[in-house]
C-alpha cells in the first residue's frame, strides 16, 4: 500500500513500489491527461510536477514520490496563465504532447524570479511535439508571461 498526494488529494494505492508514477496515475487513479510517449524520459509527454518541479512520470517510481506533492494537468486550474495562453494562441495540434508541454512550462514559470521567455524556450528541448507546434509553443510561453505580469499588477 502506497499513499500518494495527487492534485491535493491523498490516495492509497495497492501497487508495487517500483510501479512507474505514469501508470499509477493513468491506470490506478484514472488521470488520463498525463500521456505515455516513450517510457524512457525522452519525450516529455508524461511530465507532471513533484513538489513543483517538472519530472518525467514514466521514469519515476511511486516509491520515489511517496509523501511528495504531485500535480498533473488535471490539477492545473483552467484559469492558469499557461492554459489561458495555450487557448489564446491555439497552441495544440494533435495535442497529445501538450499536457506534458504545459506542465513543463508551468513549472518553469513558477520559479522565482519569473524567468524570461527566452530562458523558458531554451529549456524546452526535452519535450517532443511531432506535429511541429513549436512556433506556437514559443508564442504561448510569451503570452503566458504577459498574462502573469498583468495578473500580478491587478
Amino acid at each position, binding site marked *: 500500500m502506497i499513499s500518494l498526494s495527487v492534485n491535493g488529494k491523498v490516495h492509497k494505492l495497492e501497487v508495487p513500489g517500483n510501479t512507474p508514477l505514469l501508470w499509477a496515475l493513468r491506470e490506478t487513479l484514472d488521470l488520463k491527461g498525463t500521456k505515455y510517449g516513450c517510457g524512457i524520459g525522452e519525450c516529455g509527454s508524461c511530465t507532471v510536477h513533484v513538489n513543483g518541479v517538472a519530472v518525467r512520470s514514466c521514469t519515476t517510481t511511486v516509491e520515489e514520490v511517496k509523501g511528495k506533492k504531485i500535480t498533473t494537468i488535471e490539477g492545473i486550474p483552467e484559469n492558469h496563465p499557461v492554459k489561458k495562453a495555450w487557448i489564446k494562441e491555439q497552441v495544440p495540434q494533435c*495535442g497529445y504532447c501538450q499536457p506534458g508541454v504545459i506542465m513543463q512550462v508551468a513549472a518553469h514559470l513558477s520559479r522565482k524570479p519569473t524567468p524570461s521567455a527566452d530562458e523558458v524556450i531554451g529549456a*524546452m528541448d526535452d519535450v517532443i511535439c511531432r506535429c511541429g507546434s513549436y512556433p506556437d509553443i514559443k508564442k504561448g510561453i510569451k503570452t503566458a508571461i504577459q498574462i502573469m505580469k498583468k495578473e500580478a499588477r491587478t
Partner: protein
Amino acid sequence: MTYNYISRRNFLKGSLAGMTLVLSAGPLGFRIVNASDKDVTAFSPTSWFTVTPDNKVTIFVGNSEMGQGVLTAHAMIVADELEADWKQVEVRQGPAGDAFKSPLLGVQLTAGSASVRGFYEPLRKTGATGRAMLVKAAAQTWKVPETECQASMGTVKHIKSGRALTYGKLCQEAAKLQVPQEVTLKKESEFRYIGKTMPRVDVPLKVSGKAVYGVDVKLKDLHYAVIARPPAYGAKPLSFDEKAAGEVKGVKKVFQVPMGIAVCAETLDSALKGRDALAVKWDKGVLPEMDDAYVEKSLVDDLGKPMASAVKTGDAKKEIGEAAMKHEATYYVPCVAHATMEPMNCTASVTADRCEVWAPTQIQSAPVAIGAKLTGLPKEKIFVNTTFLGGGFGRRSKPDFVVEAILCSKALGKPVKVMWTREEDIKYDAFRPPTSHRVAAALDAQGRLIAWSHKLVCPSILKDIRPEAIKDGVDFYCLWGLADAPQSPHWINRIQYEIPNLDIEFLISQLPMPVAVWRSVQNGPNAFVIESFMDELAHAAGKDPLEFRLQALKNNMRAHRVLETVAEKAGWGKSIPQGQARGIAQHACFGTYTAQVADISVDKKNGKIKVHRNVIAVDCGPRVNPGPLVQQIQGGIILALSTTLKEQVHFANGGVKSANFDDYGVIRMSEVPDIEVHIVNSTEKMGGIGELGVPTTAPAVANAFFNATGVRIRRLPLSPGNVLAALTKV
C-alpha cells in the same frame, strides 16, 4: 460552440446500455437517428447536421481530427451556409457511414490533404439545403412568400412584419418538408465564417487534458493485450513459454495471432509482464543479412535492372546522348518512421451479435470491412468510434492495430485494448519507403532544359492498400511528385517543369520492410531529388536557380507566382548574414503550389547544419480557416526539417534496430528556425494543405547547403555524419 467529446458516460450509453445508431437512407446519403429516442423531432435532412427544438445545431464530422482542425473547418462550412449562430453549434465526431466517404478518395479516410477541399462543395450544399428548408418552414408558418423571409444567425425573419422564429422553433416543421435537390449557395461576399480564423473546437479539451485519445478509452471490464512481435522480418517463433506467461497474475489468455503471440490480461502491467515471461525464441526471418548497407546497396543495385515505363514523352535518352550539355547523378533517401506521439493502440468489443471499435484511426472504412471479415457479422453490426488521434501523418491510415484489437477481443470474449510500446511503434511501423534515383538531363546550347531521364526504385506502397491500382509494375504512390496516375485532376502530383523529352522509369523494390503513406507520400523524397537535381542543372548551366526554374515553368502561372512571391519575401538574390547561405525549391501536389527558401549555416568542423529561416509561399486557392492552415504548413516544414536533418530508421540482423527517441532522433525546439508562411490570394480551385509544408523543405535546405559549401549532398538526412563524409570526400 462546443465539442462533445466521448466521455465514459457516453461510451456506456452508446455501447453497453443498448442504445444504437440507426442508419436509414436519406436524400443526400444517410441520416443518423438515435433509435432510443422514441419521438424523433430533430430536423436532419442530411447526415451532417441536426437541428433540435432546444435550438441546438449539431454538426457531425466524418473525418478524423489529428490536429489539422478538420472538426472546426467542416463545421464552419456547414454553419456558414446554414446561417447558424456559431454559439448554437455543437460539433461531434461522426460514425462510419457512406455519407462520410471522401469524394476524392472513395472511402472514409483522412488523407491526401483532401478533407476540406474534398468536402467543401458537398458541405456547402448540405448547409444551404438546411437553410432553404428552414426558410420554407417559416414562410409556410406565416403564410407568406419565401422570398420575403431571410435566414440569419439561427433565426428566420419575415422582413416586412418583423416576425422571427428560431431554428429550434422551426425544426419540427422543416423536418416534414421535401428535401430540395437544387439549392442556392451563398455568395462568397456573404460568408460569415469561411475565410475568417475561428478558434478550433478541439483546443480547450486538449489544453485541459480531457481530450480522449485511443489510449484513454475506458470501458467496463476492459482488458489489455500486448503482442510479442518478431525481431526480424518474417521471423517465426521457435518456442515460447505459454505456461509461464499464463501464470503471471492477471493474465487471462495467451494465443498466437498472425503478427506474433498475444497476451491478454486484466491490466496493462500484467499483460506486459506476461509477455516478458513468454521468453520467445524466434528464427532468423526472411533476410537476416539485411542492415543499413544492405538496404542501400539493394536499392542502388536495382537501378541497373530493367524497369517499367511510367512516363515517356519524346526521346529523352537519345537527346541526352546527343546533347551539348548533360549531367547525371544518383540519389538515395532512407526510411523514416511516423513516430506519432501517441503510440499505436485500439480498443474493440466483440460479442455474438456486435463488434464495436474505438480507434484513433484515419480510415473508418477499414474497421468496418475488417470487423465484418474477422467476426462474420454483417457490416451493419460493426460500429466505429473515432477518438482523437495523437498524430497521424499517414500511419493511422494503416489499420493493423484494429485487426489486433478485434482478434484479441473475439478470442477473449471481453472488451480489449491493444497497446503498443514506443519501441513497438517504431520497430513495427510501416515506414516512408526508402528510395533510390538515377537522374540524367540534357540542356541545349542556351542552357535550357530539353530532356530528363529518371529511374526510381522503391518498395510498393499500394501493394497493401490497393494492389489492383498497380498497373504494369507502376505504383503511382511511389512516383507522386514525379508522375501522377492518369486522369487525376485533383492531385497534380507530377513534375511541373515543361520538358519536351521526359522518360520516367520505375521498379518495385522487393525489400521486406512494410511501407506506407507518410505526410505528402513520396512527394517528399521525390521533390528532394527533383529540386536538388534542378539546382545541379542550374549551376551546370551557369544560371541563377530561380531563373532556371522560371524558364522551365513558362506556362505555369501558379508555380511562377509562388516562386516569385517567395523570392521577394525571402530576399532571393539580396544580401544574407555572414556565414549563411540560401537555397530555393518549388513543388506542387494535392492541388496546391508551393515554393520555399531556406537560410542555413554549416559548421564544417562538426558537420552540424543550423537552419535559420524558412520562407514559404503557398497557392492553395480559397481558404476556410486561415489560422490553422498556417499552423499546418509550419508543422509540415518542421516535420520535414526533422527528416531532412536527423531521421533515419536503422536496420540490423534482418529487422529494425531503431527503437525509441534516444536512438531515433527527431527535431527539438531549439533547432526550429523562424518560419514565414505567405499564402497568396487565389481564386483557383481549392487545394490541399496538411501535407504541403513537406516537399520543398529538404531540397531548399540541401540547395542552401550547396551554396554554403560548394558540395552537393545526394542523400538524406543531412546529419553531421553524412555532412562530414560529404565534405571530406571532396
